């Protein structure tokens, strides 16, 4: 019976990446299929976020906004089901965010991007503009989703800057859009 593990084409595949477990002698490479399944950590994060009354955003390891919850939808004036997955450029055009002077915050400086790139939590005060033009001053806390397979993305949670106590359980924690 042969055992074949994935590895680089045409070469013997070692046990690298298998945490130092002893090698099986008869290994060789073969083509690896790819699947479109989201990482389990993102799936579980989305499930959790769906149950929160705090606006929350989820991006994948490439920075693509792959989900935001109902509370975030109220804040933005558009639910995720209407929006779908969006890249950072489109996101910026639609909603900002903006700094205190009304200038768009560069993508590289957004807490979510900082969290993904640095693997560290990030926090910032910023303004988000909803689809009806209403601006919301919020504080954004982002943290990376780190797994044994590396970073899988990041989560950002928004809090209203003017009144943290205004977070409610009615699915509209950041105030009406």
């Amino acid at each position: 019976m042969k055992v074949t593990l994935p590895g680089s084409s045409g070469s013997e595949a070692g046990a690298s990446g298998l945490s130092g477990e002893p090698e099986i002698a008869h290994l060789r490479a073969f083509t690896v299929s790819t699947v479109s399944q989201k990482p389990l950590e993102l799936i579980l994060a989305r499930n959790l976020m769906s149950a929160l009354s705090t606006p929350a955003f989820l991006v994948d390891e490439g920075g693509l906004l792959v989900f935001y919850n109902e509370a975030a939808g109220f804040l933005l004036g558009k639910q995720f089901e209407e929006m779908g997955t969006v890249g950072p450029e489109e996101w910026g055009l639609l909603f900002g965010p903006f700094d205190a002077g009304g200038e768009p915050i560069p993508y590289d400086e957004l807490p979510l991007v900082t969290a993904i790139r640095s693997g560290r939590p990030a926090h910032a005060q910023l303004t988000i503009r909803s689809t009806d033009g209403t601006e919301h001053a919020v504080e954004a806390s982002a943290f990376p989703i780190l797994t044994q397979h590396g970073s899988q993305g990041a989560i950002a949670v928004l809090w209203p800057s003017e009144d943290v106590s205004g977070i409610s359980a009615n699915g509209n924690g950041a105030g009406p859009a």
Partner: protein
Amino acid sequence: MKVKLWGTRGSIPSPGPETVRYGGNTSCVGVELGDGSMLALDAGTGIRNLGLALGDAPSRLHILLTHLHLDHIQGLVFFAPAFMPQTELTIWGPASPEASLRDRISRYISAPLSPIEVRELPCDFSFRHCPDAEWEIGSARIRCAPVAHRGPTLGYRIEEGDSALTYIPDHEPALGTDLAALEDEWISGFELAREASMLIHDGQYADAEYPDHVGWGHSALSHALAFANRAGAERTVLFHHDPRHSDEFLDGLGAQARAGWAELGGDPAAIELGAEGAEYELPARVSSRAKVA
């Protein structure tokens, strides 16, 4: 690919007169590949009888562990081939940032829980963390993926020719979400189960029991049906029966499963509750089957 259920029970062995038909042994499924290679999916107490059935012949065996809860590893120290020097045994399982697979299993196969230590096993054994990508054992292609359960837990897909067996015995894909509202890519375990010839899946709870067990890592019947339907499984075997469920109760649950499957547009004969000793042979598929409903 020949498949035999050696243990279908979840949580804890539950032998007794009320469980003789569906069985009381915990999770273990034997898989014989076309080239004669032998796989054991999980090593609950059912693996003891699998080991006895293999006899004394020199053998190479692969045990694929979904996770290390006791009902999935308890049979390891009673697996006769592990005590034969001529056995070549490879144990695959999920990696963990906490400790190696061997070290984690050794917590069970060591004093005071066990009379022997892993190093004392006379067989030629090795422990392997499952790779992220597909690999081969014998004539099969193996793929695994983390699935929604408590702690690091894998599901497996075993493909040989055009047949695919998917094994996800401990799974709560509907935790905190509505499966019907999710895109396929957001459903835990979906790619493993997609159009499988046979899906062996967690069906531990009746729907009425689930509210008291949310987050325990297992599925209600309706969740298992919804998952199998979404995945387009050709045949579904519900597995990991709750230890409180008698044969009589499971008969009723099976009837509910067939009715529920029919409501989804499926063939009631294509879904059943796993019974210890049941054997299947997976035929090569002619074409992909469209999911029902």
